[in-house]
């Protein structure tokens, strides 16, 4: 099997005395959608920041296509081909869809990027092409982003991340704050990212969404790997147990056929992820950091 697009080996991250991540491994192969789940403070965002270059790890190795790389800033990540779509969208409401898609992507000129004379026609054509291949439904590419629905905005933000031809797309809570139909729209888009052969990492709290589109679930708990599940063969209860620490036996991922992308509507109803505490509470690990680790910033 080919090397995964990105592999993390033994990633640790300390903020002063707080150990936010300890010895975390993660593989993100091409054409696979991996979900990163965990309770608040489990270290999800911290882990993503080590990949996207916002917060480099204190220890451990990042392999890109099998080669060790160091990602010390967002630019490093982008130039490797790692695109991150943040929860708060990062679109300009006053600009239309075309201009949001190409903002900051203008080819540089001899006098620098700002001197570029915009080719609106070319941009609009490429925008149509891109949105059509992703089946993103937008009333008009010349509508200001402010008038789009939450799902359409998220779709534009994801489409935008594809312009740099990334190998890995990281989606931070792509369906948070979206309605049912809009969530389905965005999940459809995630399936199409996989069809394009991209590695996709989805951070989500919503296990129904995770089971609808993801191939594999990686559970983080208290900054450590706490379970790896193949969506085709695992149950949501097992994942919830791993998130909350009820089940200390790691079921390990079983080899199995990849599940074709299912429409979101066929996903079984899920209990809200972080609730449903099990009868037995796992004893806290002695070295475990407090649950508020994620909020601690250097």
């Amino acid at each position: 099997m080919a090397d995964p697009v990105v592999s993390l080996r033994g990633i640790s991250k300390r903020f002063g005395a707080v150990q936010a991540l300890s010895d975390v491994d993660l593989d993100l192969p091409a054409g696979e959608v991996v979900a990163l789940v965990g309770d608040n403070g489990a270290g999800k965002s911290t882990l993503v920041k080590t990949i996207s270059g916002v917060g480099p790890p204190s220890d451990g190795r990042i392999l890109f296509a099998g080669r060790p790389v160091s990602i010390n800033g967002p630019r490093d990540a982008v130039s490797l081909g790692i695109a991150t779509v943040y929860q708060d969208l990062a679109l300009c409401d006053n600009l239309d869809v075309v201009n949001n898609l190409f903002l900051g992507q203008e080819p540089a000129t001899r006098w620098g990027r700002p001197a570029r004379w915009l080719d609106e026609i070319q941009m609009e054509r490429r925008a149509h092409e891109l949105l059509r291949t992703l089946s993103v439904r937008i009333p008009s590419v010349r509508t200001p982003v402010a008038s789009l629905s939450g799902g359409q905005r998220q779709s534009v933000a994801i489409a935008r991340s594809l312009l740099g031809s990334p190998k890995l797309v990281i989606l931070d809570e792509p369906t948070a704050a979206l309605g049912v139909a809009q969530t389905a729209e965005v999940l459809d888009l995630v399936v199409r990212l996989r069809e394009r052969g991209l590695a996709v990492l989805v951070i989500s709290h919503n296990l129904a969404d995770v089971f609808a589109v993801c191939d594999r679930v990686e559970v983080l708990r208290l900054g450590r790997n706490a379970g790896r599940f193949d969506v085709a063969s695992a149950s949501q209860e097992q994942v919830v147990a791993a998130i909350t620490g009820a089940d200390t036996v790691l079921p390990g991922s079983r080899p199995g056929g990849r599940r074709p992308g299912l429409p979101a509507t066929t996903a079984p109803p899920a209990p809200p992820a972080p609730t449903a505490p099990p009868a037995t509470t796992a004893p806290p690990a002695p070295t475990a950091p407090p649950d508020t680790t994620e909020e601690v910033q250097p």
Partner: protein
Amino acid sequence: MTSTGSDTSATMPTAPGAPPTRPPDPEPIVPAGGIAGLISLVRLVGARLRGGELGSLPVVLGLIVIWTVFQTQNSHFLTANNLTNLALQLAATGTIAVGVFLVLLLGEIDLSVGWVSGLAASVMAVLSVRHGWNPVLAIVAALVLGLIIGAVQGGIFAIVGVPSFVVTLAGFIAWQGVQLKVLGSDGSINLPDGTITKLTSTFFTDATGWGLAAVAIASYVGAQLAEVRARRAAGLRPRPLLEVAGRSAVVAAAGFVAVGVMNDDRGVPLVLVIFLALVIIVDLVTRRTAYGRHVFALGGNIEATRRAGVNVAFIRISVFALASGLAAAGGVLAASRLTGVTQSTGGSDTLLNAIAAAVIGGTSLFGGRGRAWSALLGILVIQSISNGMDLLGLDQSIKFIITGSVLLASVTLDALARRGRRSSGRG
């Protein structure tokens, strides 16, 4: 223009084997002519207005009202002589307003432009009169000084993080002091007839005036038609020909009537051409270059723009530098018209008129919305009021009250339009 219920057409696959077709786009199509075309065009305009896309319509209507009122009060108002005077009067503050427009696009404010214009004019006068510099060099020095002042103020704002309001308020106070220092104990310098005063006293011959108008209008129409053709060739929806024809007719009429009126008097003044050229350049830069797009983007969402890889500090510093540079240019034009500088050059209502002009013209105070033309339209309104009330011999107090009311009315309109946009989902 968001027509509901037809979203799906945007994703319809192209028929196999078909040539690249126009991407489906559910905007209402305006038929190319006839009564039906006219009706649907009117509908389209109506929908835009209801959605809060007022454009320059309110200010044009306001201008018509103002001119009608003054003309009925004093029949000298709409004469060739007075309208040419109006053109001479508005160029200086109008140029400053173009700079203010840029700063407002960022959603920031520059309160120092008035005194920066005065200081630049003073430095130019001191260098050319007291030190005997070549007038052209003195003008260049004034412009460079403006750019540097703006870059420093922009740097303090963009890098240190002091709010632009405070930085430029400090500039408002401090540059006035520097101007007093530069002018020294005399407090005023008269400019002898020469290159600098010729900026205002030069008028083009009738033929040159017509030629300039013809070239400008032909370029405008040509660019519009070229865009229609290019969009059609690329399979994109072009702007309806009826709209192109309408716009071209309005621009041509305005241009030729203005030239005709001024030719009836002394001719087209050089300062007006300088001012209009600056407006056109700034308009093209803001709308057609990546730089301009970054300025608009910053006015919309700072964090998103930063994450898109735009150098936010560079954009901010350069916009403030341009604003002060344009203010310096306005100061030079003002000194040229008044054939001298005094301690109050650039003071009084210069700053407020420049800001009011940009806002009245339709530039949003909230950033990210506006056209460079708003500086021209806004200063036309302000200067018409000022000029008309001078003709009527009204007191300065009335002038201030009326100008203030017009400013309030236009900002209220902006706020209401914003609400209209929000309720129709256009943020």
